[in-house]
């Protein structure tokens, strides 16, 4: 709980930084504050406290995911120097991002449907603004607008779903809802089922699962690259945690009803995301489509819904977030200096920057799921959970689609080793950026070699 309060405080502080003239100190303050937040989160480990008449529940699941998204945000703030540099109103952006983080933290620790909605709204509204935050760029405005229109619809669905579930059960509280579902199983009213489906629509929109993925490529491409990185990591992780929290606690007695739906969404996301990614020439769009595919893999854990699912989602979210941070960071650094977001712009990268290229190779191989990297173990764990639950067919689809994934990740790797056509503007990495990239590379290796560190948390 202290963690959420700290981040909220930081957000408020960021808003008044301009007035009180400590703008220059703000980045350090934010990084220190977020580091402290991680510490506060960890203090909640194994405490299981319920806050505000059972609105938030700090169980280990909540703590683990809070830590994950805070760590990811911390890593993000390290690379994000560029994003704040040229902007006259940078303090606002700090505040908005911090509030988005608060929203994410609420989404992973809610114990009441109204808190889920509030958390999601805080997160979403912040991101509508952030997607459009490059105000002079037409594409950024378009992205923000598109995200807002579509997102508002999705939120509407979610709210309507919550209403219907409330109408049937008479409660927002997850514990009571779970008790109601168990007691009434077999004679639940139709509106309850409709409610589940609408909630599913609202939340799967946020993770960009097929068929609610249409916004993702355009918004990912249009938004400033660093904001895209945050969308792929913070939003996705929080939304998956929220999905799992709700469906594993309340809706398991009726799992026959919704696992089929998610089964189809998972298969469709994996195939659509991977197949469409193959045809992309822009690296940013490629990563956007690949993020749809990764949402599909994570949905596998939700279909399986057993005692491995929580750990599987945590591991996958961690592996994917770390890989996303480093790949988007490299993309950002290269594209701002060359003005080119295409894959072809990466030609000659290996020769010019061997170390960064090595990290990019590790990142791509991790996303492709090659051992012994984090991405491999995450996929392994997801497949493992799904096979244990008996979904061998779905796992085979996942296997085949990840082969398509390997194809385009390797294409990126191949490109960076090719020699560029003609003279290209030189790209420079600041020492801090290189250090951060090296850190993500190390984390990818570490999680791959010792995945037990994460899986044992929620095992």
């Amino acid at each position, binding site marked *: 709980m202290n963690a959420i309060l700290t981040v909220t405080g930081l957000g408020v502080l960021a808003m008044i930084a301009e007035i009180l003239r400590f703008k220059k100190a703000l980045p350090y303050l934010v990084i220190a504050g977020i580091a402290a937040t991680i510490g506060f989160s960890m203090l909640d480990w194994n405490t299981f406290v319920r806050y505000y008449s059972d609105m938030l529940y700090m169980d280990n699941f909540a703590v683990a995911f809070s830590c994950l998204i805070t760590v990811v945000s911390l890593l993000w703030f390290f690379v994000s120097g560029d994003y704040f540099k040229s902007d006259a109103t940078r303090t606002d952006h700090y505040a908005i991002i911090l509030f988005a983080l608060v929203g994410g933290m609420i989404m992973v620790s809610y114990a009441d449907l109204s808190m889920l909605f509030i958390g999601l709204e805080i997160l979403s509204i912040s991101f509508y603004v952030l997607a459009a935050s490059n105000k002079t760029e037409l594409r950024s405005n378009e992205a923000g607008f598109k995200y807002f229109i579509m997102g508002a619809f999705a939120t509407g669905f979610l709210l309507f779903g919550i209403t219907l579930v409330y109408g049937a059960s008479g409660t927002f509280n997850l514990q009571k809802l779970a008790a109601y579902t168990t007691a009434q199983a077999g004679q639940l009213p139709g509106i309850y089922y409709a409610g589940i489906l609408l909630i599913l629509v609202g939340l799967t929109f946020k993770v960009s699962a097929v068929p609610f993925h249409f916004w993702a490529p355009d918004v990912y491409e249009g938004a400033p690259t660093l904001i895209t990185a945050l969308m792929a990591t913070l939003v996705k992780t929080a939304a998956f945690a929220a999905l799992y929290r709700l469906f594993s606690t309340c809706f398991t007695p009726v799992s026959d009803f919704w696992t089929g739906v998610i089964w189809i969404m998972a298969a469709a996301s994996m195939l659509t995301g991977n197949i469409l990614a193959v045809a992309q020439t822009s690296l940013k769009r490629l990563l956007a489509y690949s993020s749809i595919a990764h949402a599909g893999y994570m949905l596998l854990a939700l279909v399986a819904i057993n005692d491995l699912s929580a750990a599987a989602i945590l591991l996958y979210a961690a592996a994917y977030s770390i890989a996303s941070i480093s790949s988007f960071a490299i993309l950002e650094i290269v594209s701002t200096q060359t003005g080119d977001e295409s894959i072809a712009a990466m030609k000659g990268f290996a020769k010019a920057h061997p170390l960064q290229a090595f990290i990019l190779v590790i990142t791509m*191989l991790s996303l492709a799921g*090659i*051992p*012994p990297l984090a991405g*491999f173990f995450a996929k*392994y764990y997801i*497949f*493992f959970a799904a*096979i*244990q639950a008996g979904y*061998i067919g779905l*796992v*085979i689809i996942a*296997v085949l689609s*990840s*082969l398509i994934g*390997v*194809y385009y990740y*390797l*294409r990126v790797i*191949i490109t960076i*080793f*090719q020699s560029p056509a003609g003279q290209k503007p030189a790209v420079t990495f600041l020492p801090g950026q290189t250090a951060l990239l090296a850190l993500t590379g190390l984390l990818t290796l570490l999680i791959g070699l*010792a*995945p*037990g560190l994460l*899986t*044992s948390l929620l*095992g």
Partner: protein
Amino acid sequence: MLTLILILFPFVASLFCLLLQDKQVRSFAFIAAVVQLGITLYVVSQFVPGGGMQFVADYSWIENLGISFKAGLDGISTLLVLLTSISMVLILLSSFSREIVTPRPFYCLILFMQAALVGVFTALDGFLFYVFWELALIPIYFICLLWGGNDRVRITLKFFIYTLTGSLFMLVALIYLYLQTPVPHSFDIQALYALQLQPMQQSFIFWALFLAFAIKIPIFPLHTWQPDTYTDAPTQGSMLLSGIMLKMGIFGLIRWLLPIVPLAVGEWGRIAMGLCVTGIIYASCMALVQQDFKRLIAYSSIAHVGLIAAGVFSLSVQGMQGAMLQMMSHGINVIGLFFVADIIFTRMNTRQLSELGGIANHAGAFSAFFMIILLGSVALPLTNGFVGEFLLLNGVYQFSAVAAALAGLTVILGAVYMLRSYQAVMLGSREITASVFTPLTATEMTTMLIIAVLIILFGVYPQPLLHLTEPDIRLILDKAMVR
């Protein structure tokens, strides 16, 4: 502990390669490979044939999932580790008279590959095996991608995706097997051996594993990645692929397929045997009409490993022993052949048989070495190929006389295409000047000499190798024959 050293030493050495100067790295890598060979020979001398798994290193890795870092050596592993160590020395030696661009990553990847290969051959935990199996793919992919021929991008991509397809099915099969073990689940090989699965389950597992191994070997009709990749890879890459890497597939059949799903092997073994035999004939015929010398070697390699796989599926002691011996012989011979192709290519700038000829007039020693390697590869008595192929055909004959008759064609066809290529390359009246075909350098000569000595040595006295593997072959067969 020794097993762990065998895995870790090349790995540490590979990291060191990155710290050195471009000029030193080649010698360093070579010395590392020689040291590794020394360690291997020490291990072989300490090894007690028939003593079961020895030098077992067992560390817990991911405890709550029943995954451990467990590796050890039996006769089969020892033989393959020995093959790896010998081949590595030859491969690195063969690179001495060549100019390698950006040598540091190149040698780093080769040594890294060695570590992964030793891991594959010694792993006693299904998960660990899978990790090493995939890990071995990464370095060779980059070796082919970065130092390969003109069409390398397309070809290496095909190669990678092909092999990864098989691997992923193997992963699904391994997870499935793991879930069948009694609680707490375990990937330990003994636990997997102890499984008593239903015939249906076994068939499913059989095909998933077979796919992975058959692609790697490669067995017809899953071989289409192989000729392209061998042709376009840099010489050292081709040597790694054909000399050592395809043995991963054969080894997989012996260690991870036969004992785990004996019923399915009984049921589907005939089809597998049929594919092997078809591949032998098909590849031999393809080799007959190749114009590119390297491609010819690639096809001859498919024929040879097809016979090895057939020997494994014959489920007889002779067939399996022949497979073990022939893995060793084929590894050495094919490295020799690729080196011959490399020597010719660097001097004549072509590998087309029709554009070559008359080399023997200028290079007496070279043509003698080429002839010895060639004879080893066509299995002339007193060369290493003979003992292996004899045992293999003997084994296949016990399985089915028809299969043996068909597989036996490889000996005849092999002689035809190899002698034809020798004739086209070395003999003939084509006039080439001595300045084009410069004499072999000292390292080239040494490499060829070592290969020739090994070919004759193992041909005359194969007993130690047979002695090394026999008890473990019988153990595997006992498990595979349980009905």
